[in-house]
């Protein structure tokens, strides 16, 4: 049987993107700094991967101010959530297949 590698979402090939998406699956919104702290990454790295997810329309950005400080929140879209679930299903299938092989 053919391994369904093509079912794996290209957008989630990067680990950090997959991690961001996992966080946004269980939290309505998450802000940039909390994400940075949680994932232990740099501003630039996180920002570029968030941009990529935004371009895929997997997440939306909410910009606001707390006092004078900009506060950027991210939220997963329905499209993003579905893509994430499909990706997990594909991973699961991969495991199952490798067991039977």
């Amino acid at each position, binding site marked *: 049987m053919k391994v369904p590698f093509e079912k794996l979402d290209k957008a989630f090939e990067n680990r950090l993107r997959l991690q961001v998406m996992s*966080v946004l699956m*269980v939290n309505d919104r998450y802000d940039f700094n909390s994400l940075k702290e949680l994932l232990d990454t740099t501003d630039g790295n996180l920002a570029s991967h968030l941009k990529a997810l935004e371009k895929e329309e997997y997440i939306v950005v909410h910009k606001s101010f707390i006092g004078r400080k900009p506060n950027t929140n991210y939220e997963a879209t329905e499209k993003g959530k579905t893509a994430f679930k499909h990706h997990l299903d594909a*991973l699961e299938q*991969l495991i199952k297949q490798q067991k039977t092989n």
Partner: protein
Amino acid sequence: MKEKEIRDELASIRSLMERSSKFISLSGLSGILAGIYALIGAAAAYVVIQNNPMSGRIPLFELISNFVNVILILFAIAFIVLIASILTALVLSSRIAKKKGQPIWGKTSKVLLFNTSIPLVTGGIFIIILLYQGYDAFIIPAMLLFYGLSLVSASNFTFSDVKYLGLFEILLGLAAACVPGLGLLFWALGFGVLHIIYGSIMYFKYDK
């Protein structure tokens, strides 16, 4: 991708989902210690009540001045137990948080605190009202009930085991309301014994 890689990936996703939405650095040991502080506090309160020569013998109105002092001492004891428990929980939990890479004052702990404080502050105000209105018999049941409710509400944002502690506190609170006069005993059970049992379970389940 190898099977192990995929498994690691899935495990990291699961851990991240948990760490991002729940404060999982609560220390079980601090629960045990809080229970011990509460038992010491209850013992101290018992001594204070017993040594109050007029307690329970003269109608309340005739010993208002004396009564106020005893109440003040009891509240001071409760306050010391509370502060000691909070400090212990802060110190021990921040140690665990550091180990788990979860900030002690981050998104999850703020959400947890906010959701706990709604029933807790309501209960606190309600107890002050009870005290002023003279319904002293219901002060301890109210403490247990509102504390239990706040734990149930907290359980969505930390270990779900907290829910069971909350439910037991609520049951004890209701029982205490049915049996006036045994308040201190119920208080010692709810804040002492239950915390020690719960803390031990949590300690062996998660602290290690």
